[in-house]
């Protein structure tokens, strides 16, 4: 019978008691089971869970070092750091980014420009990276966001160090800029094994001093072991190794001189390199137009990028290092030295210049820039009036191989070794070169053009400056450089930068003297840059030059007014001053500036006036037609 009925109280109690005993046993068994489970967790698996717990709570956070400052030779800060609040987003943590940004826009200002810049950043980075959407938040904005933070998962306010370039466009090509680390940078960092150093760093030097001295500027990343809570927030520090700030760099640049130089260019495009002829220190390095490096620090927005990148003026191109131009008549002082050194010309030897020169056996004449010619011209005068005819014959007499050997001693056709990246070597042509490049033999006619700095020959403004310095200093090669001293961030000790130069070579002092004095006469009445030198209480030794932009048929007359601005010749001027004891050597190129004496030389004058006399620019009228003008 299933329905067991108990009528007996005693029997019922006995059943109750039995069941209670049974249940008690069950309880004991279950407790043993539980304790067994805890023994398993806490004794058997204790180490396993201990490890997990430590991993849970300890996080190693990198501490980014302060980037070293960049100073000019007088201590003016060219690249500074400042800390500011940024609002950062990890896109991977946000479900609907567009919506979130719209919502954010109602709390703090997010301009369309910020959004475009951010979009570009997203395209360039990985999903789990924290990217800035707004920087330089005000205290009020920080507070307002903090109050609404719960609405924005994946958004975080961070205090970050920023780079600032107080002078903006001034010297931007020399200083360079830092930008966010991109994939290419990352590969370089990995290849160099510097991954640990760059943990937590999201900017890297991209160009100029910022780029080439990245290793000095970056510093050593510190780290902090912090205890974190389940939300990833740091609770307290367990151990800390301090970061070491990057070293400060003192440049040879004189920012005031630089400013004068850039202003002297006005709206012209071009480049200027001013170096100390004794040491090779670069005091000014101009490439116009420039750009505002501050735009790049936090990722440039597409609008600004398009302007910089697509402008026909190529503001991002560093013309001083990367612009390759025919040196034109600025090559003549060097050719004159070659003439004397090789013995092919004596100082007294004169030619009678009819205004053209013909290669024996060739019908077509090579024309002088001056119709009708300069009359009787010796070596000295050939420099002062920039007589082409003199140098046609000279080039033919010395030959291309001698020209190549001699010019490379002055650094033409090779990199100067300046301490920022991107320099190009220019071109000093030779027979071998032409054979390799064009599979053609060298013709005598090729040599004639090279003799006046046209044809195949190309030089950068930097090379011209370095070569000019050698004319000024007695043919001692110098390596142009921007770094003067490195100031150690820990000890504060300054260690001077040193740069190896090419081995010096011998040039007879009297030959050098002759060329130097001819160059000094270039800026005096009768010279091609007489107007630029007019009234100066010091002597400028210089040489004007014109570089053809469009090749013209020999015999065709160059009509300046007819040629559109972009097709006008480039104006060049190399110089040093004071002529007696040179303190500054300058090479100037003004793109489409027509005549060196008219547009390039006055810039040099403003520079010297400031550098030697402390005089701020007195604008020289550059518009008028100069009778002595140019070659």
């Amino acid at each position: 019978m299933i329905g067991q009925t108990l009528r007996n109280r005693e029997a019922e109690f006995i059943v109750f008691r039995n069941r209670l005993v049974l249940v008690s046993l069950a309880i004991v068994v279950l407790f043993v089971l539980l304790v067994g489970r805890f023994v398993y967790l806490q004794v058997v698996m204790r180490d396993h869970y201990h490890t997990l717990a430590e991993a849970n709570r300890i996080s190693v956070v990198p501490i980014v070092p302060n980037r070293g400052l960049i100073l000019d030779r007088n201590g003016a800060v060219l690249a500074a750091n400042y800390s500011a609040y940024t609002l950062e987003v990890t896109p991977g943590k946000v479900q609907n980014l567009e919506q979130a940004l719209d919502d954010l826009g109602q709390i703090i200002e997010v301009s369309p420009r910020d959004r475009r810049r951010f979009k570009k950043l997203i395209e360039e980075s990985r999903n789990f990276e924290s990217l800035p959407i707004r920087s330089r938040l005000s205290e009020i904005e920080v507070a307002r966001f903090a109050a609404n933070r719960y609405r924005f998962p994946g958004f975080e306010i961070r205090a970050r160090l920023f780079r600032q370039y107080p002078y903006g466009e001034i010297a931007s090509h020399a200083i360079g800029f830092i930008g966010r680390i991109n994939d290419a940078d990352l590969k370089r960092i990995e290849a160099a094994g510097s991954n640990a150093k760059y943990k937590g760093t999201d900017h890297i030097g991209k160009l100029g001093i910022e780029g080439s001295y990245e290793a000095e500027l970056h510093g050593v990343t510190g780290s902090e072991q912090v205890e974190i809570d389940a939300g990833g927030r740091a609770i307290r520090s367990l151990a800390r190794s301090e970061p070491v700030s990057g070293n400060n760099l003192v440049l040879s640049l004189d920012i005031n001189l630089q400013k004068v130089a850039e202003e002297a260019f006005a709206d012209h495009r071009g480049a200027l390199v001013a170096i100390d002829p004794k040491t090779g220190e670069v005091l000014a390095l101009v490439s116009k137009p420039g750009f505002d490096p501050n735009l790049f620090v936090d990722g440039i927005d597409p609008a600004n990028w398009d302007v910089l990148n697509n402008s026909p003026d190529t503001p991002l191109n560093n013309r001083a290092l990367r612009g390759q131009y025919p040196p034109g008549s600025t090559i003549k002082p060097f050719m004159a030295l070659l003439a004397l050194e090789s013995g092919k010309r004596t100082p007294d030897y004169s030619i009678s210049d009819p205004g053209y020169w013909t290669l024996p056996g060739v019908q077509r004449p090579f024309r002088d820039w001056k119709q009708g010619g300069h009359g009787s011209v010796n070596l000295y005068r050939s420099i002062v009036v920039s007589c082409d005819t003199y140098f046609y014959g000279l080039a033919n007499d010395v030959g291309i191989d001698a020209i190549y050997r001699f010019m490379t001693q002055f650094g033409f056709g090779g990199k100067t070794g300046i301490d920022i990246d991107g320099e190009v070597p220019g071109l000093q042509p030779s027979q071998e070169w032409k054979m390799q490049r064009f599979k053609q033999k060298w013709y005598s006619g090729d040599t004639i053009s090279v003799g006046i700095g046209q044809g195949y020959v190309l030089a950068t403004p930097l090379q011209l400056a370095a070569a000019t310095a050698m004319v000024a200093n007695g043919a001692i090669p110098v390596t142009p450089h921007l770094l003067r001293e490195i100031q150690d961030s820990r000890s504060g000790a300054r260690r001077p930068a040193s740069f190896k130069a090419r081995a010096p070579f011998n040039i007879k002092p009297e030959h050098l003297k002759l060329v130097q004095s001819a160059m000094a006469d270039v800026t005096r009445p009768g010279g091609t840059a007489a107007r630029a030198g007019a009234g100066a209480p010091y002597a400028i030794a210089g040489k004007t030059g014109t570089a053809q932009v469009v090749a013209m048929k020999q015999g065709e007359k160059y009509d300046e007014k007819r040629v559109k601005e972009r097709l006008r010749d480039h104006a060049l001027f190399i110089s040093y001053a004071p002529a007696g004891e040179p303190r500054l050597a300058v090479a100037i190129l003004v793109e489409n500036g027509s005549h060196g004496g008219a547009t390039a030389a006055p810039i040099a004058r403003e520079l010297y006036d400031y550098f030697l006399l402390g005089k701020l620019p007195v604008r020289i009228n550059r518009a008028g037609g100069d009778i002595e003008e140019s070659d």
Partner: protein
Amino acid sequence: MKKAIDAAFSLVARRLDAPLTATIVLLVAVGIAVIYSTSGGNAFDRPLGQLRNFAVALTAMWLVANITPQQLMRLALPVYIVGLALLVGVALFGDIRNGARRWLNLGFVTIQPSEIMKIGVPLALAWYFHKREESLRIVDYAVAVLLLAIPAGLIMRQPDLGTALLIFSSGFFVILLAGLSWKILISLAVAGGAALPFVWGMLHDYQRQRITTLLDPSSDPLGAGYHIIQSTIAIGSGGLLGKGWLNGTQGQLDFIPERSTDFILAVFGEEFGLIGIVALCALYLVIIARGLMIAMNASTVFSRLLAGAITLTFFTYIFVNMGMVSGILPVVGVPLPLISYGGTALLSMLVGFGILMSIASHKHLVAS
């Protein structure tokens, strides 16, 4: 004067069971210490809140202990009927909070009627079996099962699986102790086992997930599995001796969710180790042993069934909570008795102990 003090002391203490009271106070004190630790070791609002909860619950316990079992028996049916009516009310008009309809707004106060049934169901069943003493038939068990199934079913529908399970087991314990034959129990168990797939079908998604998560916590490490993973890490890393009071890292650093309520054992296990857990189990065993002793010595069917069921339900709480925190049972919202932070659970627990004490202290009166 001395007489007056003695009289007052006797008034307060004569219905209280000394070993039970002492152990309860000790456990609640341990609980408050752990709650203090879970609030970072510097905030007092939670520990003080729990102290206040304890004061209220203790008063309730004392009041209940002073009610005679006969009076309790008379209250049994009304409590059950009112509780059932409220549960129906919840099902019809209840407020929805966190996706479950558990609360009933009576205009002046919002209550969770399932809490009343934690006492109401064993009370009613014990009363029923007492009434049917000496004339128990199979049909009585059927009625008892019905008395149990209706509220349990309503609560499960809310849905509140944890409470439904606890209320079901409290009623089941009464029926078990009342002497339902093993054959029926076993066939019911088999039938229940066969019904599992259907029950699975009735479960809500989140309930199913809790069960699948138990089988493989790593399947959802940031969602449902997070609780289990983090609590086992905390307990396991505590080791034999624990990291010391206030020194647990996992609990202090917010890794354990609900660390002052349902998952407080994880913090306790981390800070006091296996030694602490064994000691805790020993204290619980003292209470259970004392409760079973009271049940054994109770003089009426009502008393002994009620005392037995209350004690076994108390154990069920402990087992389910410890099993859940250590990762051998699914995560159901069951607090650790006397330790977890929370007024309601503590109140219903101590009302239960009040009933035990009433039974213990009134048995001679009944006998005479």
